[in-house]
């Protein structure tokens, strides 16, 4: 008979933090016994009495949740939209990247001469493991953010404390990277959680200051692609020829991967900075002065790296390309000239493009300060 009560108490307390269990069980048992005694009016308790009492008391899950009134989230409602968005963006970027990699390796024919089906199975395998690690990593990052900012009141176990400590450190590092709004956002965050007053409402952005979310999302996708391709598959960037004798596609890498990697390191910094900028833009929905300054910085840094890269002939796999061109019977002399010309034209285009971007951002930045 009493086993029903034990079962009930266990069903409630097992849902509670360890530190609270013993005390709550003791108190609940005492209360339940009082209630049972009251309804018995002197006679001995039957199994039926206990069951009725427990039914009246209600679902253990509900009772336990009354003891834990703070809703518990891994990722709370204030972060969940951003979480889904980033998951989608990164997912699409990686999906596209892997698909391109698949197509290239299928066209090339892997050295082991795998069949098409094997390649496709391998593709889904890679896609699956990439998806798992992506979702996992992003979820952990968000959970840490949740614990450090939103879930500050939730503190029970030592493990949670340690996790929070680690999260704080990561959070600090994250903040330092977001050069553009360190001070401002810190103030804003404090204001958001503590007091809010209408006079702090930001002005409705001028149409030139409004962020096009789709532009930012597309940028993020391409940044993701660039990060993936240049870091993981730099050797796949190149010219592709159909080899008639071997009856397959052969790729000639455009870059000397070992030398390129030094430049990629700098580009990674610029790309990640740009990705952070776009995340920030999507969050705030407006181009502020700081955002424009960061954009100018990114443009100039990118241009600098680009010029350095293009000035260094060792970056390009010249020998390989030449050999490839000869082997596959392409007219070499004309193409080489064209190649040099192309590089010059490309440089002019990139410089002009950067100049336009810098002037545009500078103009709006000044305008926003003047008005």
């Amino acid at each position, binding site marked *: 008979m009493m086993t029903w009560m034990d079962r009930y108490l266990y069903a409630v307390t097992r849902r509670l933090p360890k530190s609270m269990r013993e005390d709550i069980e003791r108190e609940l048992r005492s209360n339940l016994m009082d*209630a049972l005694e009251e309804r018995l009016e002197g006679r001995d308790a039957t199994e039926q009495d206990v069951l009725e009492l427990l039914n009246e008391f209600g679902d253990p899950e509900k009772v336990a949740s*009354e003891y834990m009134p703070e809703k518990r989230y891994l990722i709370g409602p204030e972060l969940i939209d951003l979480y889904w968005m980033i998951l989608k963006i990164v997912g699409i970027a990686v999906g596209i990247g892997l698909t391109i990699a698949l197509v290239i390796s299928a066209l090339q024919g892997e050295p082991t001469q795998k069949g098409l089906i094997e390649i496709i199975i391998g593709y889904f395998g890679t896609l699956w493991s990439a998806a798992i690690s992506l979702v996992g990593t992003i979820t952990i990052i968000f959970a840490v953010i949740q614990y450090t900012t939103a879930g500050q009141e939730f503190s029970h176990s030592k493990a949670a404390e340690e996790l929070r400590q680690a999260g704080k450190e990561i959070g600090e590092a994250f903040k330092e990277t977001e050069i553009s709004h360190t001070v401002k956002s810190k103030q804003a965050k404090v204001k958001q959680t503590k007091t809010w007053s209408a006079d702090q409402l930001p002005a409705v952005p001028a149409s030139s200051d409004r962020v096009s979310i789709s532009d930012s999302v597309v940028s993020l996708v391409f940044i993701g692609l660039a990060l993936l391709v240049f870091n993981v598959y730099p050797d796949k960037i190149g010219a592709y020829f159909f080899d008639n004798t071997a009856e397959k596609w052969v790729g000639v890498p455009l870059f000397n991967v070992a030398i390129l990697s030094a430049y990629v390191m700098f580009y990674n910094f610029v790309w990640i900075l740009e990705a952070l900028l776009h995340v920030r833009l999507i969050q705030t929905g407006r181009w502020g002065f700081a955002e424009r300054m960061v954009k100018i910085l990114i443009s100039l840094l990118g241009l600098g790296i680009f010029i350095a890269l293009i000035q260094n002939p060792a970056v390009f796999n010249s020998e390989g390309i030449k050999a490839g061109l000869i082997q596959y019977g392409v007219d070499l002399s004309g193409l080489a000239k064209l190649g040099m010309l192309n590089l010059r034209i490309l440089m002019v285009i990139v410089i002009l493009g950067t100049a336009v971007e810098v002037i545009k951002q500078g103009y709006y930045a000044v305008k926003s300060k003047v008005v």
Partner: protein
Amino acid sequence: MTQNDAIQNLMQELRRGTLVIGVLSQLHEPEYGYSLVQKLNDCGMTIDQGTLYPLLRRLEKQSLLESNWEVEDPRPRRYYQLSDSGREALEALKTEWNELVKTMNLMLSLESEEALK
């Protein structure tokens, strides 16, 4: 959710808001869980025990109540009583409640007149 459920839900929400003031008002003298249930019941306030006991703990955590275990026959019981800040909170809640009653009575009497037309 049927219309009836929705109405039930609304009434439950309305009652829930009054729980704290009701509970605090009955704890000038120490009470243990079940004795408080009966006391509230006698006044006409029905409350699930599964709601009340966690509420008592929360109020204690907020320092509005103090508690201690009394070893007595037939079993040890935890007694709750208002703390100093609990008394203060109760006074503030009472003032607020009286204002609310005034406002609501006014609004509802106007509504009755309106409905009669």
